[in-house]
């Protein structure tokens, strides 16, 4: 609760709205105590006195009544009517919603049908019909406004109740022999009340506006009693001669409704957990870069990462997702990057082309050289021209990564046309060729399908075809087979392997599965907590892992034909990368850890083709 209030106050606009509302409410409450002139005493000799005249701070209206006094009394009335309408609508709506949600079945069906029916009206028609039946008057306008808002509350509260009615504690109460009435009152209601209060606070401005509107039409408060709406309605006749009589009540309605809206937005934002974690921020077209020095290119390879560092900055926390990673891949080579989820392997891959969601991601150091050109911090135009053309990605879940509303053929054709100016027809032909190349049967008809009409394996083939579209130099495959079943997985892997051999592609293959690495990759890099802990040719790493973490990771893979070997899970969890301990991040889970392991930074020791970051490796590298 204090956290919520703090968030609310930190939101300056919400605080401003709250202050305005508080001031208006206090003024309305103390109106009878203020030394005001009587609001309904007419004095036609003093009609239309301008504002800021002595004796009449806001001037007078068409009957010579003091506007300040009428404004405050009118505000009092408008607030009271709007708030009462909100409370009545909320109470009745919540009761209907709880009954429908709690009992379900036929009761729910009948009630919700009726609610839908009422919501099929434009709200004012219903309100007008009710006022027509009951006759004009403030009380009747209040009833009309409350009535047209009942369905809104009923529908919202029903949704919440349905969720709560299925929970364990309600079942428990039922089993304990509690009656329906008591369950609703003691188990359901306390959980629904906060939702009712929030829905009410967001609609109260709306209710004030609606009652003011009916009064404005002459269907609400009747003279001489006046709320803000009827003040405005009466002033309309003198709009041209004495505009201040319209501006005064109009500005007050505006101030009240705006204050409530500001406050309501603040409340909603403060309650939205996604907004709090920054999840609703929009990723920019390229990851932001903030680095001081640029390391020089070292070795060869078509792509070379040098001391790459990527962080997520969420509020005061800094997550070091990628921590000085150096890698290289040669044409025709397949490099595997392996690690548990959260080890930074995907972020490493996405950093290369600036695809890390930013905010919150920031590349804070290092370089990524593609044929000698640094991609980190390259201008957006340069990055865009390389994306999908020279360096292409295959992503994990093809259900989410293909656009759901475009035909797959069009998505393929687009991938070509954003890089090559060819005709639509040509691009479509090429798309069908690509689908054939990834062994999709009936490519021509499949090109016209939407992603949801294809199987998971098919969609992943489309993803591969899309990556192949422009004959790239490098493909970065981010767990492309994780979502697929084993046979499809094997087909996809052999497909990728064939493409690599035929076209001399460099592949960076990200996975958490050593079995896949063994099948496809020439070399492998093992990542843990944002760092590379071991690197080397796949065969030697698999046969003789040097880092204790690699050894344990390999032990997790069941081998065919090896009998029933015990799966050795690694105890503990990978560390959170916002609070990394000094030294080896794996030390807390390592059975060989000693004090020295956590004393200071441990370097990646290279020996020949292999490298390991460990003081007490399983194998001595030569």
């Amino acid at each position, binding site marked *: 609760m204090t956290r919520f209030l703090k968030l609310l106050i930190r939101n300056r606009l919400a605080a401003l709205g709250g202050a305005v509302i508080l001031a208006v409410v206090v003024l309305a409450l103390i109106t009878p105590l203020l030394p005001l002139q009587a609001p309904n005493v007419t004095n036609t000799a003093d009609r239309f006195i301008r504002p800021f005249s002595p004796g009449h701070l806001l001037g007078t209206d068409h009957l010579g009544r003091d506007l300040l006094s009428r404004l405050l009394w009118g505000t009092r009335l408008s607030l009271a009517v709007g708030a009462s309408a909100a409370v009545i609508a909320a109470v009745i709506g919540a009761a209907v919603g709880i009954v429908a949600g709690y009992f379900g079945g036929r009761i729910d069906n009948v009630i919700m049908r009726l609610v839908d029916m009422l919501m099929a009206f434009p709200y004012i028609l219903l309100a007008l019909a009710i006022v027509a039946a009951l006759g004009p008057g403030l009380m009747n306008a209040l009833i009309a406004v409350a009535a047209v808002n009942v369905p809104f509350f009923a529908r919202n509260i029903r949704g919440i109740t349905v969720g709560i009615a299925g929970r364990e504690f309600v079942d428990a109460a039922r089993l304990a022999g509690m009656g329906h009435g008591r369950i609703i009152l003691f188990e359901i209601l306390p959980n629904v009340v906060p939702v009712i209060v929030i829905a009410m606070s967001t609609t109260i401005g709306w209710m004030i506006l609606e009652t003011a509107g009916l009064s404005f039409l002459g269907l609400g408060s009747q003279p001489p009693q006046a709320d803000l709406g009827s003040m405005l309605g009466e002033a309309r006749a003198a709009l041209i001669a004495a505009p201040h009589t*319209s501006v005064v009540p109009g500005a007050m309605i505006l101030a009240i409704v705006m204050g409530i809206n500001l406050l309501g937005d603040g409340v909603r934002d403060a309650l939205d957990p996604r907004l709090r974690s920054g999840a609703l921020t929009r990723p920019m077209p390229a990851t932001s870069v903030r680095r001081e020095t640029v390391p020089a290119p070292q070795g060869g390879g078509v792509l070379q990462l040098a001391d790459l560092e990527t962080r997520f900055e969420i509020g005061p926390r800094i997550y070091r997702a990628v921590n000085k990673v150096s890698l290289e891949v040669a044409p025709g080579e397949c490099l595997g990057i392996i690690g548990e989820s959260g080890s930074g392997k995907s972020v490493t891959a996405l950093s290369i082309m600036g695809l890390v969601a930013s905010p919150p991601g920031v590349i804070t150091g290092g370089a990524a050289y593609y044929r000698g050109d640094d991609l980190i911090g390259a201008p957006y135009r340069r990055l865009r021209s390389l994306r999908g*053309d020279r360096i292409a990605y295959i992503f994990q879940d093809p259900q989410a990564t293909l656009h759901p509303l475009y035909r797959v053929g069009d998505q393929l054709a687009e991938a070509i046309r954003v890089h090559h100016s060819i005709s639509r027809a040509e691009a479509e032909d090429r798309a069908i060729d690509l689908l054939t190349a990834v062994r999709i049967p009936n490519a021509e008809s499949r090109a016209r399908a939407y992603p949801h009409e294809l199987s998971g394996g098919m969609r992943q083939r489309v993803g591969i075809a899309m990556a192949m579209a422009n004959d790239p130099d490098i493909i970065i495959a981010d767990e492309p087979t994780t979502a697929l079943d084993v046979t499809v997985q094997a087909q996809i892997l052999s497909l990728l392997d064939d493409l690599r051999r035929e076209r001399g592609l460099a592949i960076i293959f990200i996975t958490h599965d050593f079995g896949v690495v063994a099948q496809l990759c020439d070399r492998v890099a093992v990542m843990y907590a944002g760092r590379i802990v071991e690197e080397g040719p796949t065969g030697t790493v698999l046969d003789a892992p040097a880092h204790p973490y690699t050894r344990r990771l390999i032990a997790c893979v069941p081998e065919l034909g090896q009998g029933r070997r015990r799966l050795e899970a690694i105890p503990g969890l990978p560390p959170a990368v916002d609070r990394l301990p000094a030294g080896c991040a794996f030390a807390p889970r390592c059975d060989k850890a000693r004090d020295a392991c956590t004393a200071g930074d441990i370097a990646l020791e290279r020996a020949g083709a292999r490298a390991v970051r460990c003081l007490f490796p399983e194998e001595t590298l030569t």
Partner: protein
Amino acid sequence: MGGYILKRLISAVPVLLGITVIVFAIMALIPGDPATAILGSYATPENVAKLNRDLGLDQPAVTRYFIWLGNMLQGDFGRSFALNRPVLDEVVERFNATLILAGTAFVLCSLLGILAGVVSAARQYGWADKAITFAVLLGISIPSFFLGMMMILIFAVNLRWLPVSGMYAIYGGGDFPDLLRHLTMPALALAVVATGVIARLSRSAMLEVLRQDFIRTARAKGVPERRVIWGHALRAAMVSIIPVLGIQAGFVLSGAVYIEIVFQWPGVGRMLVDAILKRDILLVQGGVVFVAACYVMFNIVVDVAQSLLDPRIKT
């Protein structure tokens, strides 16, 4: 597709029937005697009884409902006693004027709202986003009738750019440019609130979509950012924006009542308010049923548009 439209049309029948029942039930609440209301307090009891018989008011409510419904189905909405002409003629004539006003406002708020929402989302936390967010807040907070009055004061009275009110000039008007000049202010005043709501919703729908994986795929393909926003992202966001447009159409229609009063627009809203003040019950009943039915039909159009946009909806 044809089957889907038919299905939606059939499903509208119970809703339309429900609307007539609700309207009839509300009207049956009327205290006092309609015949007395029509004839005035000096009517003799014989005259009242005769009128009651003529109007069929001596029948039970259920019978009266079915007579009323049957007549409406044959296009007979009854006679307005205040205007002394068939209700349907008056309603259709007035509804045309409302349709011009509300239709223009609806097109305006849809286009401007989506435009503002997309720009706002694409420039999140930039100055354009902040300016739009503030304008939207102002727009959804200002009562449309107050806004209309202020517009009259500024643009018609002080600047003399546009006519104060009405639909056509009394002398020499009646052509399209004349209509346009009269339409500008009321249509804008009516569109403001809905524009704000649509802009707000479009912004959050766009932000939601822009975090999706398929947007990252589009960027990884090298699709230019402009096309990522206005093509890939907006297309997906429209799926959640279109239902809001359907709801906002109802609010535009509702707001038209106020705007018609402020700008003396000869629409169905002004007709209803006048009819209520004159207690011309048949006119109110007929007008409400007619407009509600049109709104239900419009929502079917929205649903069909939605199904055309989203291939995942089973048609």
